[in-house]
């Protein structure tokens, strides 16, 4: 497995200076802090581990129900419940340091200050190899405009965080926009080392008997195979617009899905909802990628990345 593994196949990729032994990582919020799935798979085999979104102060999250299934997808409104940056560093990071797999800390805030503080604290911890900014959160100061859907606030927050950290910085883009390539370019201009996409799409399910939203939070984020065609299209659009690497995600369930993202231009992929259905999905996809390369007589995964023919 991994670089120079069986049959001299290279599946190592480079994301913003981070060498990943394969292009498969976990999607934030779907893999806890790594522990939960460590019984199901060898965390050493993953390209990277992206942990649940962290904020400078712990969050309680939303009331329940937090989850509802939809056709080929699910809505979640966890409300970014998390133990906070400090507790994460003290209680969860030591476990993750036992593995050779790079750890990417996903984080967010309600204000630029909170983003900056979280980035600083995470950057000074031992065992965090990259940061992923979740900008799909409303900006308290700017009247709850969502950071990731407003070009101006987005530029401000990314620029500020860029100054606060020297770790590889990934900006995670929201799909709830008219032109995601514009947002990707802003991230690139503001100093991001990579972009990841897509975050969930806002949706709602109504209980027709009660005439109430099923989720206590009313709306939630749609993930899973339902959104995959939209995510693949967005990765392709962003690939044409920026030079920095792309981490693609959104409904990847198996190797074939992962390949769609790589071919569209993603240099790595993240597996989210699929973990819930198949806790070993990541490993099966890593193995599947190698198998595909053997079948297609390819020796380097970079021959696949962005290889979409559209003539």
């Amino acid at each position, binding site marked *: 497995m991994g670089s120079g593994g069986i049959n001299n196949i290279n599946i190592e990729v480079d994301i913003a200076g981070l060498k990943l032994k394969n292009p498969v990582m976990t999607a934030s919020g779907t*893999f806890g802090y790594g522990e939960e799935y460590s019984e199901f798979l060898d965390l050493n085999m993953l390209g990277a581990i992206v942990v649940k979104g962290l904020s400078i102060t712990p969050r309680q999250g939303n009331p329940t129900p937090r989850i509802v299934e939809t056709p080929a997808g699910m809505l979640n409104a966890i409300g970014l419940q998390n133990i906070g940056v400090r507790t994460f560093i003290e209680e969860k990071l030591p476990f993750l340091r036992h593995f050779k797999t790079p750890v990417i800390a996903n984080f967010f805030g309600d204000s630029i200050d909170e983003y900056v503080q979280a980035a600083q604290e995470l950057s000074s911890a031992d065992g965090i190899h990259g940061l992923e900014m979740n900008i799909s959160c409303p900006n308290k100061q700017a009247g709850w405009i969502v950071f990731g859907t407003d070009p101006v606030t987005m530029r401000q927050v990314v620029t500020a965080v860029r100054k606060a950290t020297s770790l590889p910085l990934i900006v995670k883009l929201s799909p709830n926009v008219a032109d995601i390539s514009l947002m990707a370019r802003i991230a690139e201009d503001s100093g991001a080392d990579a972009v990841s996409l897509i975050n969930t799409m806002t949706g709602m399910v109504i209980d027709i008997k009660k005439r109430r939203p099923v989720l206590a939070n009313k709306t939630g984020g749609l993930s899973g195979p339902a959104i995959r065609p939209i995510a693949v299209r967005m990765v392709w659009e962003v690939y044409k617009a920026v030079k920095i690497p792309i981490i693609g995600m959104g409904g990847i369930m198996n190797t074939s899905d992962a390949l769609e993202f790589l071919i569209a231009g993603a240099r790595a992929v993240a597996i989210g909802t699929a973990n819930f259905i198949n806790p070993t999905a990541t490993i099966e996809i890593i193995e599947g990628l190698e198998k595909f390369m053997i079948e297609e007589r390819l020796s380097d995964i970079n021959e696949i990345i962005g290889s979409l023919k559209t003539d």
Partner: protein
Amino acid sequence: MNRYFKAIVLENSVLNNHFRLLTIEAERIAIDARPNPVPGQFYMLQAGNTYDPLLKRPFSIFRYEDGLMSFLYRVRGKGTLLLSSLKKGDIIDVIGPLGNGYPEPEGDFIAVAGGIGIASLFPLLSKFKNRAYLFYGARNKQELVMIDEAKTFSKESFVATDDGSEGHRGTVTDLLKSFLNSSLITHHSSLIYACGPSPMLKELLHIVVGEKAKCYISLEEHMACGVGACIGCVVKTVSGYKRVCKEGPVFEIREIVWNNGVMK
């Protein structure tokens, strides 16, 4: 330990209109490494090869014997409908055993089952034979599924139905109340296990509040992962949100924060 595996369907029988019993066996290769379940634990099950339904569904272990696992279930929506179409020889995807089961009783105990809640309590009855005072309630006689077996394993049993078609007409909590008031087991030291609908659990709270009796209830929440990763299935406890799939599904009733009769 291998908690994620494929299993073969041995039997999927109709008990009556509403209830079915599914028996599966883990594929050979997975068996050795597989942990045994304890009463109150659950498995995530998924039938079919489709993304609609997408998620696995949680089911309490009903019976476990030598690698064979049985689940007692009720058809409610798409997931259980698909489960009901499984036939002998079909393959099914399984994660489990998951969660924390009921703490072991030391002496006799009380088991309070509401409807399909019997599925979760049944292995407790069969493991600790003749030690349970069983309180079993359902809408009507037909829905008192597995009642004969449950009675056989119990020391004494008390039955209630909403329509009076069997046993007391009313709720099991009525029966429990009078039992506790008049029984030989002292109110204070009693140990109660319960699984059933919210209103029943709420009633239980009223009964045990202020008493020393320990009361362990098994909760249901919508689940995505079942293993503690998504934080989707939480319940509000006196020490904050806890994951039903990981810290639960069994909680001491006083841990739960109740709000207008529903857990929040």
